[in-house]
Protein backbone atom coordinates (compact mmCIF):
# COMPACT_ATOMS: atom_id res chain seq x y z
CA UNK A 1 0.00 0.00 0.00
CA UNK A 2 2.79 2.38 0.98
CA UNK A 3 4.56 1.51 -2.24
CA UNK A 4 1.46 2.32 -4.29
CA UNK A 5 1.13 5.72 -2.67
CA UNK A 6 4.77 6.60 -3.22
CA UNK A 7 4.54 5.47 -6.81
CA UNK A 8 1.44 7.59 -7.39
CA UNK A 9 3.17 10.59 -5.86
CA UNK A 10 6.19 10.12 -8.09
CA UNK A 11 4.02 9.79 -11.18
CA UNK A 12 2.15 13.00 -10.40
CA UNK A 13 5.40 14.81 -9.61
CA UNK A 14 6.79 13.67 -12.96
CA UNK A 15 3.72 14.98 -14.75
CA UNK A 16 3.97 18.29 -12.93
CA UNK A 17 7.02 19.33 -14.92
CA UNK A 18 4.86 20.54 -17.79
CA UNK A 19 2.20 22.20 -15.64
CA UNK A 20 1.22 25.59 -17.10
CA UNK A 21 1.34 27.37 -13.75
CA UNK A 22 4.85 26.10 -13.12
CA UNK A 23 6.50 23.09 -11.51
CA UNK A 24 7.04 24.87 -8.19
CA UNK A 25 3.34 25.66 -7.80
CA UNK A 26 2.40 22.12 -8.77
CA UNK A 27 4.86 20.48 -6.40
CA UNK A 28 3.77 22.63 -3.48
CA UNK A 29 0.14 21.71 -3.94
CA UNK A 30 0.89 18.06 -4.60
CA UNK A 31 3.04 17.78 -1.50
CA UNK A 32 0.45 19.58 0.62
CA UNK A 33 -2.29 17.34 -0.68
CA UNK A 34 -0.44 14.14 0.19
CA UNK A 35 0.77 15.52 3.54
CA UNK A 36 -2.79 16.30 4.55
CA UNK A 37 -3.74 12.62 4.29
CA UNK A 38 -0.49 11.24 5.68
CA UNK A 39 -2.12 10.19 8.95
CA UNK A 40 -4.75 7.87 7.47
CA UNK A 41 -4.71 4.26 8.62
CA UNK A 42 -7.96 2.76 7.33
CA UNK A 43 -7.23 0.75 4.16
CA UNK A 44 -10.58 1.63 2.58
CA UNK A 45 -9.98 5.35 3.09
CA UNK A 46 -6.47 5.16 1.65
CA UNK A 47 -7.76 3.31 -1.39
CA UNK A 48 -10.36 6.02 -1.88
CA UNK A 49 -7.70 8.72 -1.77
CA UNK A 50 -5.56 6.73 -4.21
CA UNK A 51 -8.48 6.52 -6.60
CA UNK A 52 -8.77 10.27 -6.37
CA UNK A 53 -5.06 10.65 -7.14
CA UNK A 54 -5.51 8.43 -10.20
CA UNK A 55 -8.41 10.63 -11.27
CA UNK A 56 -6.18 13.71 -10.97
CA UNK A 57 -3.55 11.93 -13.04
CA UNK A 58 -6.08 11.34 -15.82
CA UNK A 59 -7.31 14.92 -15.63
CA UNK A 60 -3.79 16.32 -15.98
CA UNK A 61 -3.02 14.03 -18.93
CA UNK A 62 -6.27 15.24 -20.53
CA UNK A 63 -5.31 18.87 -19.88
CA UNK A 64 -1.95 18.40 -21.57
CA UNK A 65 -3.46 16.55 -24.48
CA UNK A 66 -6.21 19.12 -25.09
CA UNK A 67 -3.68 21.94 -24.93
CA UNK A 68 -1.45 20.27 -27.50
CA UNK A 69 -4.33 19.20 -29.74
CA UNK A 70 -5.86 22.68 -29.77
CA UNK A 71 -2.50 24.32 -30.51
CA UNK A 72 -1.85 21.95 -33.41
CA UNK A 73 -5.38 22.31 -34.73
CA UNK A 74 -5.19 26.08 -34.62
CA UNK A 75 -1.82 26.17 -36.39
CA UNK A 76 -2.31 23.56 -39.05
CA UNK A 77 -5.98 23.35 -39.85
CA UNK A 78 -8.15 26.04 -41.38
CA UNK A 79 -11.14 27.16 -39.37
CA UNK A 80 -14.01 24.93 -40.40
CA UNK A 81 -16.89 27.32 -40.87
Amino acid at each position, binding site marked *: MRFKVIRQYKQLLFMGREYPRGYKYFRENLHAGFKKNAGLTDVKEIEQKLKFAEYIEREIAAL*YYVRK*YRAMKQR*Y*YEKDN
Partner: protein
Amino acid sequence: MPPRLNIVVPVKRVIDFAIKPRISASQNAIETNGVKFSLNPFCEIAVEEAVRLRESSKDLVESITLVSAGSAKAQDTLRAGLALGADKATLIEIPAIDDSKSLELEPLAVAKLLKAFVKKSNANLVIMGKQAIDDDSNQTGQMLAGLLNWSQATNASKVTVDEASGVVTVSREVDGGTETLSAPLPLVITTDLRLNTPRYTKLQDIMKAKKKKTEKVSPEDLGVDISSRLEILSLSEPPKRPGGGKVDSVDALIGKLRETGAI
Protein backbone atom coordinates in the same frame (compact mmCIF):
# COMPACT_ATOMS: atom_id res chain seq x y z
CA MET B 1 1.25 -17.36 -43.33
CA PRO B 2 -0.18 -13.86 -42.64
CA PRO B 3 2.41 -11.10 -42.95
CA ARG B 4 3.87 -9.69 -39.77
CA LEU B 5 4.53 -6.00 -39.57
CA ASN B 6 8.09 -4.84 -39.13
CA ILE B 7 7.45 -1.18 -38.41
CA VAL B 8 9.96 1.67 -38.54
CA VAL B 9 8.85 4.94 -36.92
CA PRO B 10 11.11 7.91 -37.71
CA VAL B 11 10.87 10.62 -35.07
CA LYS B 12 12.21 14.14 -34.72
CA ARG B 13 13.38 16.21 -31.77
CA VAL B 14 11.85 19.69 -32.06
CA ILE B 15 11.47 22.79 -29.92
CA ASP B 16 8.48 22.17 -27.65
CA PHE B 17 5.20 23.30 -29.19
CA ALA B 18 4.36 25.58 -26.27
CA ILE B 19 7.52 27.67 -26.68
CA LYS B 20 7.80 30.72 -28.95
CA PRO B 21 10.97 30.32 -31.01
CA ARG B 22 13.33 33.30 -30.95
CA ILE B 23 16.12 34.22 -33.29
CA SER B 24 19.54 34.04 -31.64
CA ALA B 25 21.74 37.08 -31.11
CA SER B 26 23.88 36.25 -34.13
CA GLN B 27 20.74 36.67 -36.27
CA ASN B 28 21.21 33.61 -38.40
CA ALA B 29 19.68 30.79 -36.40
CA ILE B 30 16.91 29.93 -33.99
CA GLU B 31 17.93 30.25 -30.33
CA THR B 32 18.33 26.75 -28.90
CA ASN B 33 20.29 27.47 -25.72
CA GLY B 34 18.29 26.45 -22.65
CA VAL B 35 15.19 25.91 -24.75
CA LYS B 36 12.94 22.94 -24.04
CA PHE B 37 12.86 20.28 -26.74
CA SER B 38 10.44 17.42 -27.11
CA LEU B 39 9.12 14.75 -29.44
CA ASN B 40 7.34 16.23 -32.46
CA PRO B 41 3.56 15.93 -31.85
CA PHE B 42 2.90 14.23 -35.20
CA CYS B 43 5.72 11.76 -34.53
CA GLU B 44 4.18 11.02 -31.14
CA ILE B 45 0.95 10.10 -32.91
CA ALA B 46 2.95 7.84 -35.26
CA VAL B 47 4.56 5.94 -32.36
CA GLU B 48 1.16 5.60 -30.68
CA GLU B 49 -0.34 4.17 -33.86
CA ALA B 50 2.40 1.56 -34.17
CA VAL B 51 1.84 0.53 -30.53
CA ARG B 52 -1.93 0.36 -31.07
CA LEU B 53 -1.45 -1.91 -34.08
CA ARG B 54 0.51 -4.26 -31.83
CA GLU B 55 -2.15 -4.10 -29.13
CA SER B 56 -4.97 -4.72 -31.61
CA SER B 57 -3.84 -8.19 -32.60
CA LYS B 58 -1.48 -10.61 -30.92
CA ASP B 59 0.93 -11.60 -33.68
CA LEU B 60 0.42 -8.73 -36.09
CA VAL B 61 3.45 -6.65 -35.23
CA GLU B 62 6.88 -8.21 -35.10
CA SER B 63 8.85 -5.16 -34.07
CA ILE B 64 8.64 -1.40 -33.74
CA THR B 65 11.92 0.39 -34.37
CA LEU B 66 12.41 4.11 -33.83
CA VAL B 67 14.96 6.10 -35.75
CA SER B 68 16.02 9.71 -35.50
CA ALA B 69 18.66 11.76 -37.30
CA GLY B 70 20.30 14.50 -35.30
CA SER B 71 22.73 15.37 -32.55
CA ALA B 72 23.37 13.10 -29.57
CA LYS B 73 20.62 14.97 -27.71
CA ALA B 74 18.07 13.18 -29.86
CA GLN B 75 18.64 10.18 -27.54
CA ASP B 76 16.15 11.78 -25.12
CA THR B 77 13.53 11.88 -27.83
CA LEU B 78 14.19 8.24 -28.69
CA ARG B 79 13.83 7.32 -25.03
CA ALA B 80 10.47 9.07 -24.91
CA GLY B 81 9.37 7.02 -27.90
CA LEU B 82 10.65 3.80 -26.30
CA ALA B 83 8.65 4.68 -23.19
CA LEU B 84 5.52 4.93 -25.35
CA GLY B 85 6.00 1.30 -26.34
CA ALA B 86 8.55 0.90 -29.13
CA ASP B 87 11.03 -1.99 -28.93
CA LYS B 88 14.32 -0.49 -30.01
CA ALA B 89 15.79 2.71 -31.34
CA THR B 90 18.60 3.86 -33.58
CA LEU B 91 20.19 7.28 -33.60
CA ILE B 92 21.74 8.47 -36.86
CA GLU B 93 24.25 10.79 -35.29
CA ILE B 94 25.03 13.96 -37.19
CA PRO B 95 28.13 15.75 -35.87
CA ALA B 96 27.65 19.41 -35.01
CA ILE B 97 29.15 21.92 -37.40
CA ASP B 98 30.14 24.07 -34.46
CA ASP B 99 29.16 24.26 -30.84
CA SER B 100 26.17 26.50 -31.30
CA LYS B 101 24.22 24.61 -33.91
CA SER B 102 24.25 21.24 -35.57
CA LEU B 103 23.84 20.80 -39.29
CA GLU B 104 20.22 21.30 -40.26
CA LEU B 105 19.11 18.33 -42.26
CA GLU B 106 16.98 18.90 -45.30
CA PRO B 107 13.99 16.63 -45.99
CA LEU B 108 15.73 15.00 -48.95
CA ALA B 109 18.78 14.15 -46.85
CA VAL B 110 16.53 12.72 -44.13
CA ALA B 111 14.59 10.71 -46.70
CA LYS B 112 17.83 9.26 -48.09
CA LEU B 113 19.04 8.34 -44.59
CA LEU B 114 15.70 6.73 -43.81
CA LYS B 115 15.66 4.82 -47.06
CA ALA B 116 19.04 3.29 -46.27
CA PHE B 117 17.94 2.51 -42.71
CA VAL B 118 14.60 1.01 -43.72
CA LYS B 119 16.28 -1.25 -46.25
CA LYS B 120 18.82 -2.33 -43.64
CA SER B 121 16.11 -3.17 -41.07
CA ASN B 122 13.95 -5.12 -43.50
CA ALA B 123 10.87 -3.13 -42.57
CA ASN B 124 7.61 -3.40 -44.44
CA LEU B 125 5.77 -0.45 -42.90
CA VAL B 126 6.88 3.08 -42.09
CA ILE B 127 4.61 5.23 -39.95
CA MET B 128 5.82 8.80 -39.47
CA GLY B 129 4.56 12.26 -38.66
CA LYS B 130 3.28 14.25 -41.61
CA GLN B 131 5.49 17.22 -40.78
CA ALA B 132 7.75 18.59 -38.08
CA ILE B 133 6.52 21.62 -36.21
CA ASP B 134 9.83 23.42 -36.67
CA ASP B 135 10.35 23.39 -40.41
CA ASP B 136 6.83 22.37 -41.52
CA SER B 137 8.17 20.78 -44.71
CA ASN B 138 5.62 17.98 -45.11
CA GLN B 139 8.00 16.38 -47.64
CA THR B 140 10.03 13.68 -45.95
CA GLY B 141 7.35 10.96 -45.95
CA GLN B 142 6.49 11.51 -49.58
CA MET B 143 10.14 11.61 -50.66
CA LEU B 144 10.87 8.46 -48.68
CA ALA B 145 8.05 6.59 -50.40
CA GLY B 146 9.37 7.74 -53.76
CA LEU B 147 12.95 6.69 -53.00
CA LEU B 148 11.83 3.30 -51.69
CA ASN B 149 9.32 2.93 -54.50
CA TRP B 150 6.66 2.02 -51.94
CA SER B 151 3.00 3.03 -51.80
CA GLN B 152 2.22 6.02 -49.63
CA ALA B 153 -0.83 7.21 -47.70
CA THR B 154 -0.31 10.64 -46.18
CA ASN B 155 -2.38 12.61 -43.64
CA ALA B 156 -3.84 9.36 -42.32
CA SER B 157 -6.75 9.71 -39.92
CA LYS B 158 -7.50 5.98 -39.68
CA VAL B 159 -5.42 2.88 -40.38
CA THR B 160 -6.64 -0.70 -40.55
CA VAL B 161 -4.65 -3.76 -41.51
CA ASP B 162 -6.26 -6.83 -43.00
CA GLU B 163 -4.24 -9.56 -41.36
CA ALA B 164 -4.98 -12.25 -43.87
CA SER B 165 -4.00 -10.39 -46.99
CA GLY B 166 -1.60 -7.76 -45.68
CA VAL B 167 -3.63 -5.00 -47.32
CA VAL B 168 -3.65 -1.73 -45.41
CA THR B 169 -6.66 0.59 -45.64
CA VAL B 170 -6.05 4.23 -44.80
CA SER B 171 -8.51 7.10 -44.51
CA ARG B 172 -6.86 10.36 -45.48
CA GLU B 173 -7.84 13.88 -44.54
CA VAL B 174 -7.90 15.95 -47.72
CA ASP B 175 -9.27 19.40 -48.46
CA GLY B 176 -12.55 18.13 -49.79
CA GLY B 177 -13.18 15.68 -46.97
CA THR B 178 -11.94 12.14 -46.41
CA GLU B 179 -10.40 9.83 -48.99
CA THR B 180 -9.95 6.11 -48.41
CA LEU B 181 -7.03 4.25 -49.98
CA SER B 182 -5.93 0.70 -49.72
CA ALA B 183 -2.60 -0.79 -50.68
CA PRO B 184 -0.64 -3.94 -50.00
CA LEU B 185 2.54 -3.78 -47.93
CA PRO B 186 5.13 -2.27 -48.06
CA LEU B 187 3.79 1.17 -47.37
CA VAL B 188 4.68 4.60 -45.96
CA ILE B 189 1.98 6.24 -43.82
CA THR B 190 2.20 9.79 -42.49
CA THR B 191 -0.01 10.75 -39.58
CA ASP B 192 -2.63 13.42 -39.31
CA LEU B 193 -3.58 15.03 -36.00
CA ARG B 194 -6.81 13.07 -35.77
CA LEU B 195 -5.34 9.60 -36.12
CA ASN B 196 -5.21 8.84 -32.40
CA THR B 197 -4.71 10.28 -28.93
CA PRO B 198 -1.21 9.46 -27.69
CA ARG B 199 -1.02 8.08 -24.16
CA TYR B 200 0.87 9.95 -21.47
CA THR B 201 3.96 8.00 -20.48
CA LYS B 202 4.12 6.45 -17.03
CA LEU B 203 7.28 6.87 -15.00
CA GLN B 204 7.71 3.06 -14.86
CA ASP B 205 7.69 2.88 -18.66
CA ILE B 206 10.47 5.44 -18.81
CA MET B 207 12.49 3.28 -16.41
CA LYS B 208 11.79 0.20 -18.55
CA ALA B 209 12.78 2.16 -21.68
CA LYS B 210 16.29 2.59 -20.32
CA LYS B 211 16.80 -1.15 -20.74
CA LYS B 212 15.67 -1.19 -24.36
CA LYS B 213 18.23 -1.43 -27.10
CA THR B 214 19.55 1.80 -28.63
CA GLU B 215 22.10 1.89 -31.40
CA LYS B 216 24.08 4.61 -33.08
CA VAL B 217 25.00 4.82 -36.73
CA SER B 218 26.52 7.55 -38.86
CA PRO B 219 25.48 8.84 -42.28
CA GLU B 220 28.70 7.29 -43.63
CA ASP B 221 27.64 3.87 -42.31
CA LEU B 222 24.46 4.26 -44.35
CA GLY B 223 26.36 5.56 -47.36
CA VAL B 224 24.42 8.80 -47.60
CA ASP B 225 25.64 12.27 -48.50
CA ILE B 226 23.79 14.72 -46.29
CA SER B 227 25.19 18.01 -47.57
CA SER B 228 22.68 20.81 -47.92
CA ARG B 229 21.41 21.86 -51.29
CA LEU B 230 19.54 24.86 -49.94
CA GLU B 231 21.03 27.95 -48.35
CA ILE B 232 19.14 29.97 -45.78
CA LEU B 233 19.48 33.57 -46.90
CA SER B 234 17.75 35.30 -44.03
CA LEU B 235 15.74 34.58 -40.94
CA SER B 236 13.38 37.08 -39.36
CA GLU B 237 10.53 37.14 -36.88
CA PRO B 238 7.06 37.99 -38.14
CA PRO B 239 6.21 41.74 -37.98
CA LYS B 240 4.93 42.82 -34.57
CA ARG B 241 1.18 43.34 -34.49
CA PRO B 242 0.33 47.02 -34.24
CA GLY B 243 -1.29 47.83 -30.87
CA GLY B 244 -5.04 48.17 -30.65
CA GLY B 245 -6.75 51.22 -29.24
CA LYS B 246 -9.73 51.75 -26.96
CA VAL B 247 -12.65 54.06 -27.66
CA ASP B 248 -15.10 55.64 -25.19
CA SER B 249 -18.36 55.72 -27.10
CA VAL B 250 -20.19 54.27 -30.08
CA ASP B 251 -19.71 57.58 -31.99
CA ALA B 252 -15.96 57.39 -31.40
CA LEU B 253 -15.99 53.80 -32.64
CA ILE B 254 -17.83 54.78 -35.80
CA GLY B 255 -15.40 57.66 -36.28
CA LYS B 256 -12.41 55.32 -36.01
CA LEU B 257 -13.94 52.80 -38.39
CA ARG B 258 -14.54 55.57 -40.93
CA GLU B 259 -10.93 56.73 -40.49
CA THR B 260 -9.50 53.35 -41.36
CA GLY B 261 -11.86 53.01 -44.28
CA ALA B 262 -13.71 50.04 -42.91
CA ILE B 263 -17.12 51.68 -43.44
